[in-house]
């Protein structure tokens, strides 16, 4: 029993350090740093690189100082200066996706720098082999250091935030950034410091936890992600409650680990953080801001014409028919994979794009769909698709019930916890899912078989197109208007007689059913599937990048989903054919997510604006009497916006003269730092 307490306290101490870092960045910038775990992981790798005798072999104290006082804070400062400062008035989904993009990019970067195949990295414990006896339990020096560090961090943060001028300024900036600036505080400097401090704490957690766990990119990131549950106990604001959350999490994990054999399989060390996050989100009261005073979502909801939609759909199906003759088997495999992913990403368009309900779990529902298809439809019986629709729809509706009172970040975290739970506890229960060999048959429509690659690819294209028609019809109709109304103003909807509960349950169920069907079709294309295909971060098809690329394409656009699915599937292939681009392709999903800081409406909307602008310009050239200002940049500018601005090139710092060459108002505004969102909100 004393073992559990000691191990529990050590886990709790690490979670407390990590979670405090999350709280510090959230309270000062209002942005939840999904990349916190990745910063911890990267810092641990940097520390290994500096200190290990297999690498640079610097003395441990010097390596520690360089990692925790130079690298991690520097990274935090850079993250704030280059990305987070631009997000103050961004739509809720953008504020979530940019840090997720960073998370994915940092994992990719670490994988490129320290390839797991060639670099066998591991960190030793501090003072390896030394321990002291506490009540009959041998406590290692490393464990002792972890405990003392947590106490020092807790006391230090309390003093910093409540007894120093910097702490007061940090709290002022989160309350009202503009007002703090008017009172002589530099919000940028303060938020930069907060991010530096938050990332230093993440780095500290990484360096402390890496010796206990393996030095592995995904494992280490996910373990620090567990700290989310602890931070939510303190509602991302209270440090003492966060420490309490860390204590509950640490002790529960060790208790569950100790009694693992007596517990049902769905309660394990892997599921405890997800279950705790789920419980905390349901039990902890939400901010009043969830109903009133939400930042308005300025994102566009495209409304394409029917001829365009039908024409594009027909072209896609025709392309799917001819593509098997044009490309290699490997490319064909990726294209099919991309189309299936596009169907899964499309499930987010009505839910998130129209209705503003953020979900990070589309791939978990896809996994359920594939699991159902594998269990009952391994022979390709299409009637099983009805079971997929029904079961995924019901599960989606059930998940939406606790989600009804949640919005924005809280809702994202709830769906995150659900996805983690499905990955760790539900999918492994299905035959063959752990080994990745669960068979899924290709559909046989009562004699019309889709067994050949061509037939199956056409089936995927037809399914995407039909779903696309359905989603477009939804957009143009009554339900589409109601979803958009709910996204913009739940309060107004309720006072006009809209039953928000019913609408949310319906759209969650619809989205889950679509994702489930996408998963079932994906299983058929691949032939066999496993947990790896539907995991959040690990494996060949990570769930977070899917959400990310759906948003990058344009979360409210059918074409955006197609773009997201195809890019995620085809990008690695480009890296294989052209090795010079391999690293870039690995980084692409993350970088694309980060680019949303500059391009919140998504690539499709931006490209379509540019296209319209070009057409309009031509007509203007023909009729010079008409004045027109381009709503967005040229295609070259669109491409430039997909890549984040280099260090030091923040809008405020560009010389006014540099604006002279800009050809449109949008670029000009960005350069002189004009903030139309805020102007409008205050008008």
């Amino acid at each position: 029993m004393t073992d559990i307490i000691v191990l529990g306290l050590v886990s709790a101490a690490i979670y407390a350090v990590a979670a405090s870092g999350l709280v510090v960045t959230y309270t000062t910038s209002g942005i939840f740093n999904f990349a916190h775990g990745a910063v911890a992981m990267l810092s641990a790798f940097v520390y290994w690189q500096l200190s290990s005798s297999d690498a640079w072999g610097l003395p441990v104290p010097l390596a520690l100082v360089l990692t925790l006082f130079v690298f991690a804070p520097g990274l935090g400062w850079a993250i704030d200066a280059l990305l987070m400062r631009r997000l103050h008035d961004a739509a809720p989904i953008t504020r979530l996706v940019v840090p997720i993009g960073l998370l994915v990019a940092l994992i990719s970067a670490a994988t490129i720098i320290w390839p797991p195949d060639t670099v066998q990295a591991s960190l030793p414990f501090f003072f390896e082999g030394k321990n002291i006896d506490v009540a009959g339990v041998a406590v290692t020096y490393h464990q002792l250091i972890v405990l003392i560090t947590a106490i020092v961090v807790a006391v230090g943060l309390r003093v910093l935030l409540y007894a120093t001028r910097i702490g007061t300024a940090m709290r002022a900036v989160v309350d009202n950034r503009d007002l703090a600036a008017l009172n002589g505080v530099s919000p940028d400097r303060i938020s930069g410091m907060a991010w530096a401090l938050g990332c230093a704490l993440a780095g500290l957690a990484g360096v402390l936890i890496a010796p206990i766990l393996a030095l592995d990119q995904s494992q280490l990131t996910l373990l620090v992600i567990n700290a989310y549950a602890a931070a939510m106990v303190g509602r991302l604001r209270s440090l003492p409650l966060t420490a309490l959350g860390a204590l509950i999490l640490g002790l529960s994990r060790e208790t569950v680990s100790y009694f693992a054999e007596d517990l049902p399989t769905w309660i394990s060390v892997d599921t405890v953080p997800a279950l705790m996050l789920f419980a905390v989100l349901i039990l902890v009261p939400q901010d009043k801001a969830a109903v009133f005073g939400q930042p308005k979502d300025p994102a566009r909801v495209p409304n394409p014409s029917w001829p365009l939609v039908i024409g594009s759909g027909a072209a896609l199906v025709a392309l799917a028919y001819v593509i098997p003759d044009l490309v290699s088997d490997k490319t064909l495999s990726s294209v099919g994979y991309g189309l299936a992913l596009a169907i899964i990403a499309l499930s987010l368009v009505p839910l998130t794009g129209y209705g503003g309900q953020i979900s990070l779990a589309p791939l978990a529902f896809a996994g359920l769909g594939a699991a159902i298809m594998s269990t009952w439809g391994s022979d390709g019986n299409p009637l099983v698709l009805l079971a997929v629709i029904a079961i995924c729809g019901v599960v989606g509706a059930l998940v939406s019930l606790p989600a009804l009172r949640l919005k924005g970040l809280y809702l994202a975290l709830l769906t995150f916890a659900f996805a983690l739970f499905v990955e760790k506890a539900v999918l492994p229960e299905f035959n063959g899912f752990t080994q990745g060999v669960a068979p899924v048959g290709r559909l046989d429509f009562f004699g019309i078989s889709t067994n050949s690659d061509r037939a199956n690819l056409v089936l995927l294209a037809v399914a995407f197109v039909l779903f696309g028609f359905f989603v477009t019809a939804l957009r143009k109709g009554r339900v589409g208007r109601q979803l958009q109304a709910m996204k913009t103003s739940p309060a107004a909807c309720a006072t006009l007689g809209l039953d928000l509960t019913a609408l949310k349950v319906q759209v969650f169920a619809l989205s889950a059913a679509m994702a489930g069907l996408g998963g079932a079709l994906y299983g058929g294309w691949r032939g066999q599937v496993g947990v790896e295909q539907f995991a959040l971060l690990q494996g060949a098809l990570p769930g977070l990048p899917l959400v990310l690329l759906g948003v990058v394409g344009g979360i409210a656009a059918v074409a955006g989903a197609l773009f997201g699915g195809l890019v995620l599937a085809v990008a690695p292939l480009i890296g294989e054919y052209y090795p010079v681009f391999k690293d870039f392709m690995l980084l692409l999903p993350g970088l694309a997510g980060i680019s949303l800081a500059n391009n919140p409406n998504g690539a499709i909307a931006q490209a379509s604006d540019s296209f319209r602008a070009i057409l309009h310009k031509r007509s203007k050239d023909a009729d010079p009497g008409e004045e027109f200002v381009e709503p967005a940049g040229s295609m070259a500018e669109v491409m430039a916006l997909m890549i984040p601005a280099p260090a030091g090139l923040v809008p405020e710092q560009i010389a006014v003269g540099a604006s002279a060459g800009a050809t449109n108002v949008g670029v000009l505004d960005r350069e002189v730092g004009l903030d139309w969102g805020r102007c409008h909100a205050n008008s």
Partner: protein
Amino acid sequence: MPILETQEISVRFGGHMAVNSVDLSVEAGEICGLIGPNGAGKTTTFNVITGLQAPTRGRIRLDGQDITSLSAHKRARSGIARTFQRLELFGSLTVRDNVRTAAELNRTMARPVGDVADELLERVGLTGVDNQRADALSTGSARLLELARALACTPRVLLLDEPASGLDEGETDRFADLLMELARDGLAILIVEHDVPLVMRMCDHLTVLNFGEVLASGTPKEIQKNQAVLDAYLGQDPGAPG
């Protein structure tokens, strides 16, 4: 008999009593004003009546029926509509679709919703901008759109929260005429407004709130003479003797 009645409603936010034992009543065809300084509890009272805020204590009755436990959307369906002090338009929809969405939610609507939307937009004077995105409107036009959207619910009671702020003089006059016309048609209107001349001109009855409590209640003339109201809110007319 009043169509809408609040009985001793109170709202407490932690240690702060935002609304304290407020009684209000509005009859069909009547325009009632709810006035008072900022922070007096006017918007909170509206939130309680429309179901966006649960009262700590007290009852709300519509046509004599207790609706205190009804959710916001059910109250809307039983005939209470409102506008907001902080604009709550559906910004990504067009002006016409804002009204259309409300009409579609109105289960008693027998006519084509498109026609209803066009008619209401014409009535509030927004016909020319019906295909614009709602978040592109000026504040004054946006308030008129909120009114049109609320009317699409065919309410029996209309709650207007500072509807004239952002309107110019001409717009305000037309707006007042429209409200009086609606009241003549039998609509009960409860209005929160800081434009005192407008309130005095339109309202049949006024209730003055201060620090969450009813300071005075009566006809506009009675309120104008009430010393407590003059001290707390209206102030002295510099031209008046004494």
